[in-house]
């Protein structure tokens, strides 16, 4: 790849436009690069690209860097950047959109956050409510062998939880309107797809 080509991919408007068209993606255009989100973000020290640069990379259409960045997966939805953003960008909503985009593009196993979110959703849709103990088990099962090690590291936290009956292993109630919920979801997902 020549240097010029490399540069071209760094400023690829087609890629920028693709991301502008995802849910809430259009907000990224109005970032004026003040950098307030960066100092605001509690997870910034773990990010490959801190939020401002992440948005700048999207505006530039820098495909490689955007696709590789762990930025959205570190977002905790604490909302602080969103309430502070001087340009009114709902940053956590943008991050939701990016996470959905990345999961669709790269598969739910490409990032732990993608898998966890998907598992959470699956449990919820199936039962109408969350069942935290089940969610945890499902997640580690789906994540595969390497995750088991992580799970074991968590045992010191999980054990007292179980002891204190805060992770009931018996399934919680499911709701009556499960199919109603599913219909609502499906319709909403279809509408959202039409919307952009």
């Amino acid at each position: 790849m020549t240097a010029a080509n490399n540069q071209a991919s760094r400023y690829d408007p087609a890629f920028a436009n693709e991301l502008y068209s995802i849910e809430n993606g259009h907000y990224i255009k109005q970032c004026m690069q003040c950098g307030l989100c960066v100092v605001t973000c509690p997870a910034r020290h773990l990010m490959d690209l801190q939020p401002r640069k992440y948005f700048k990379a999207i505006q530039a259409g820098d495909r490689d860097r955007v696709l590789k960045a762990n930025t959205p997966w570190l977002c905790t939805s604490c909302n602080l950047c969103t309430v502070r953003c001087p340009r009114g960008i709902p940053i956590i909503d943008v991050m939701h959109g990016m996470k959905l985009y990345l999961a669709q593009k790269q598969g739910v196993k490409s990032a732990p956050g993608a898998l966890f979110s998907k598992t959470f959703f699956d449990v919820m849709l199936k039962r109408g409510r969350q069942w935290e103990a089940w969610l945890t088990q499902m997640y580690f099962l789906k994540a595969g062998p390497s995750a088991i090690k992580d799970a074991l590291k968590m045992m010191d936290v999980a054990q007292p939880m179980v002891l204190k009956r805060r992770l009931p292993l018996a399934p919680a109630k499911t709701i009556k309107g499960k199919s109603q919920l599913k219909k609502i979801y499906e319709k909403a997902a279809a509408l959202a797809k039409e919307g952009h």
Partner: protein
Amino acid sequence: MTKKQAVYFCTGCGLGEALDIPALVKVAKSEFKIQDVKEHPFLCGPEGVALIKKDIEAGVNTVSIAACSERVCYDVFNFGPSIIVERIPLRERVAWVQEPGDEDTNMMAEDYVRMGLSRAKVTELPEPFLVENPSKTILVVGGGLAGMTAALEAAKAGYDVVLVEKEAQLGGWAGKVYKLPPLVEPFTDLAENNIPALAKAIEDNPRIKVYTGATMESIAGGPGVFNAKIKHGGGTAEEKVGAIVLATGARPYDPKKLTYLGYGKTNVVTHAEVEEMAKNGKLKEVKRVAFIQCAGSRDPEHLPYCSAACCVETLKQAVYLKEFNPDAQVYIFYKDIRATGKYEYFYKAVQQTGAVFIKTEIPGVQVLEDGGKLAVAGKDIILGEDVTIGDLDLVVLANGMQTNAAFGEEVVLEDAEAEAAAAKEEEAAVKLDQIIKSNMLNLVYRQGPEMPALKYGFPDSHFICFPYETRRTGIYAAGVVRATMQVPAAIEDATGAALKAIQCVEAVARGEAVHPRSGDISYPEFNMNRCTQCKRCTEECPFGAINEDEKANPLPERTRCRRCGTCMGACPERIISFKNYSVPMIGGMAKSIEVPEEEEEKPRILIFACENDAIPALDMAGIGRMKYSAWVRVIPLRCLGSLNLVWISDAMSSGIDGVMLLGCRHGEDYQCHFIKGSELAEIRLSKVSETLDRLGLESERCRFHQVSIMDYYRIPKLIEDFVAKIDELGPNPMKGF
């Protein structure tokens, strides 16, 4: 008018306690032979005022009020236009700054009474200078956005207007653009080019007479009586006008000087070229475009200033590109996005079109040719890496602007040059105004044909508080000829200039001065019998108000005069005076000061102070009860530019030990309301040193200080320092001669 003088002493506000009032009464009665001398414990109260009014009814017409400063109680002591009122500021300048009951305090008060009464004795009621049938027509030179706005706004206020445009059609630069940036809420949408509508409104307005394809051949006269000759259609038209708005605009910075940003390469264009392309529908095929901001601007090698409008213009053109081709991709290389005020909304709106902003250093980006296409390379500062944007169809240089007033040769006044050279040998010389022959007004003024230029060739004005301050009375520059600005600012500027022009013609009709001595009806009279044709008055008048005939006799254009008295100060023969302000009058005040014998060891220091800033500052020192030396006596001047050196030599020869001048800051950030007054005074003072030395006097006995109105806390210290210096020098050897 036969004077009938009366003097009133107020004993309130501590004056009665601090001063020996009977002694002051005695000065008035015995030294000035004034019969009507009264005192009152509360002169500004209803009873006190009634007392004065009763005397006026009985025939008193010259009232001296020995009480507070003229800056206060101005309304209660106003007895109408036929009564002369002189204020003797015993409160702020004596009682509140001196030890009460002290002998020296009282001597000081007595001298103030003497100065006040000697002034009251000779001052006269001024009568206005009225010209016959003054014209109230406004001449607007330049038919672009600012000029058209000024013309229309003046006409809407009921004034006749003559509008002169050098091109065949009205519109100027704005007439050539495709659209204008947003002008109204919500400041996100481009405005349609309203120039045709403005032109139509002007055409339809019976008050406006338009000359297109026309230039100013000459403008002679002054406010109310300008004689404007307009070159037009092969001939010359003549118009009598009252005031002028100069709105000749700016021109884009010459792109030929921007080869370092790729100008000259195919498809590297300027803002103006994009406007043309937009108008001709040539942007349809353009897909990838880079703008380079600050092309020439903010660059010491080119235009050190910011051209103010280019950021918004680029944002506007970015919208064009999207309008013609929704797939267009815009890149903007910038240093700072200067979309000020509500243009922030526009900036955001343009971001929403998907334009990419790249912060970079402008001399530093490179424009490259890349296989029939263009590429721009530079450092993306906030992404932290070098970038190259290639495959560009167009590179647009935001090439800024330069005032039209900056083009042309500089005026060299031959004799002035010679004199300046001679003066240079004496070190101090009055710097001549830079005047550039830009062929816009062609004034028949002795000082040169155009407005004096400020930095970068922009004509007036330099003031913050008074942006329509002008050094050519009745001529107001507006729009981008005066300063770089965005479109809404140019519209406001032109509207304001129209108001000032209207105000000027009304003031001339009333025989009044315009800013800053607005309302003043006094004017300088020249006793030509004694004129020696030295030309100092014509050269030093900051407003170019005095022409000359072939024999170098001054020809004052009275309506150009701003009544500062600079000519009066300049004249070595003292032939120039106002009815209520003259060399003998001020000299008389100085001479009225009683100079004690050397043995008494009571030196006397005379302060000439600018009434606009130094005098209020001295008042503030009084209000703050700050103490300063009892040796000083202060005489206010209209402007230190009116300082005549004879006052200093007279003071010195009468035994005054020192003279101090308090004037405004001068130099590039001058604060003198008459532009050059304080500077001239300092230069004159430097010339007097030689004379003093010849008299065997130390030139350190005269001192000049630049002070501002806020220096009141510093002035007592300046005075003390000077007193110490005088002590060191010892008494004036001229004392008693």
